[in-house]
């Protein structure tokens, strides 16, 4: 069915079709509309979900942990300060290997107060042991929400699927919805190796785990991250075979003969694709790499993509506050350390607090990358693009 939906509506529709056993949520400011829309589905009897309206996002994530440990399929939704408040519990969910899925709207973190898009909220949680997939548009947000539930349950890892605030969350687009019956069929039942509620086979979850075994348990969590990319690829392919929309781990656009390229995440990927088209019409060999799966960082696929051009401009919608630039830039630089095809690399921090980025501005960045190619030198590694006083 083809419909017009905002990103929030599209993710809420996916949640309705997934029909999770438990959703626990709290609408902290700035709230996402997703929970509100989903609570209406609960009220209207369109889902069988146990909806738990808790008193904070910390409690929301805690309730999700309890429910998921009991064997339920569990989802929630949050944004910005809400994710920050969940922070402590994020690590617990990952450490207990609970496949909870969060539909997230990427917004900046206070202070100053701002409700618009940047990626600082999820970046601050990138080391929590959750899968992170950043989507480009409402269709991808919808499709990824469904995929992520299956990926998370197969990998026994929690995951976040995110959209850019307002740009996608509140922007209405054409979205193709899957038939209601097909989504549960695609997902199947959650398979359990053990459950808190299986009284015949009692288990202990979350006990004290000191010097003797803590390290082994954390190591196995890292193993799960290490092994998840093939699962993601498999689920993406199954999804494509069934519903016709295929997604890559790393989205490469016109990269095969690209001399210079931009690496970016989220909705700016689409704007950059239009820029690539326009510049290609003028004979400029430019390409684009969009990091769709960000955690785990797809080292091999990304190294392959970034080894093609001579110059890469990494566009980050977040800053590490370390004076070393943005998160994506640092990851990209790190994987290329041993590469014999290192491109020259420059970091563009842009769009913090929702500042718009236009086709013309991205064209200007490509122009600078060509200058770097010509001179063979990067004058300044990290620049703040589109900010006053630069």
């Amino acid at each position, binding site marked *: 069915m083809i419909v017009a939906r905002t990103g929030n509506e599209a993710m809420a529709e996916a949640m309705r079709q997934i029909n999770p056993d438990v959703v626990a949520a709290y609408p902290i400011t700035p709230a996402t509309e997703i929970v509100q829309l989903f609570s209406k589905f609960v009220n209207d009897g369109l889902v069988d979900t146990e909806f738990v309206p808790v008193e904070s996002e910390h409690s929301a994530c805690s309730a999700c942990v309890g429910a998921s440990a009991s064997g339920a399929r569990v989802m929630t939704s949050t944004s910005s300060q809400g994710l920050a408040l969940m922070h402590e519990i994020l690590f617990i969910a990952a450490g207990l290997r609970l496949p909870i899925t969060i539909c997230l709207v990427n917004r900046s973190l206070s202070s100053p107060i701002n409700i*618009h898009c940047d990626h600082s909220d999820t970046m601050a949680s990138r080391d929590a042991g959750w899968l992170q997939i950043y989507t480009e*548009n409402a269709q991808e947000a919808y499709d990824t929400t469904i995929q992520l539930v299956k990926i998370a349950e197969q990998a026994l890892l929690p995951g976040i699927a995110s959209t850019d605030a307002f740009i996608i969350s509140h*922007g209405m687009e054409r979205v193709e919805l899957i038939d209601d019956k097909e989504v549960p069929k695609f997902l199947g039942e959650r398979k359990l190796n053990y459950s808190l509620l299986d009284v015949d086979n009692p288990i202990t979850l979350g006990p004290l785990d000191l010097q003797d075994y803590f390290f082994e348990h954390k190591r196995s969590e890292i193993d799960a991250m290490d092994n998840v990319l093939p699962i993601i690829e498999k689920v993406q392919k199954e999804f494509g075979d069934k519903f016709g929309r295929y997604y890559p781990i790393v989205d490469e656009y016109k990269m095969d003969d690209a001399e210079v390229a931009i690496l970016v995440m989220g909705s700016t990927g689409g704007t950059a694709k239009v820029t690539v088209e326009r510049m290609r019409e003028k004979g400029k060999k430019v390409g684009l790499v969009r990091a769709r799966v960000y955690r785990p960082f797809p080292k091999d696929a990304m190294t392959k993509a970034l080894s093609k051009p001579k110059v890469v401009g990494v566009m980050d919608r977040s800053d590490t506050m370390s004076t070393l630039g943005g998160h994506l830039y640092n990851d990209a630089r790190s994987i290329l350390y041993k590469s014999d095809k290192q491109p020259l690399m420059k970091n563009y921090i842009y769009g913090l607090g929702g500042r718009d980025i*236009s086709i013309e501005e991205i064209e200007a960045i490509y122009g600078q990358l060509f200058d770097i190619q010509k001179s063979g030198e990067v004058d300044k590694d990290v620049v703040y693009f589109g900010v006053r006083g630069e």
Partner: protein
Amino acid sequence: MALLEIRWHGRGGQGAKTAALLIGDAAVETGKYIQAFPEYGPERMGAPVFAFNRIADEPILQHCGIKTPQIVVVLDPTLMETVDVTEGLPEDGVVLVNSQKSAEEIKKQLGLTSQKVYVVDASKISKEILDRDLPNTPMLGALIKASRLLEFEPMLASVQNRLKKKFPNRPEVVQGNIKAIKRAYEEVGV
């Protein structure tokens, strides 16, 4: 159809966002690709607000703001005194204004030469039919007439469906809006 960009000017509470969503919805139902989005700020009743549409036959990839719309719709004529409603409008652009004035007067007021100006007294239509000054829905009728971006009847059916969902127990509101859209479609003048 090549990519068409529309900017809606209104005041908080006048329904600029709703109008953009309604036209986006209708365009999707006729097989188009669309975007409909407001500009979010610290909005208050009566403050100037914007909403936007992109409509095309092909997938729309860009997610940047709209700076050079081909069509501008002004829901409140007093905005023309404080907001540069024609900013970024190309030479062959179209301006549609809710006003009692003539198209010629508006053209002069905005200092336009080559652009096309359409006017309709959407507030009067809304007040007469709905007993309230809600110019957004009648302006949809005027927009379709001025731009021909969609066929009128399918657009009307789509808006009716969406309003029915929004006002399930108030059929008089749905019918009133449809009547207002039809009248604005008839009355819009160049």
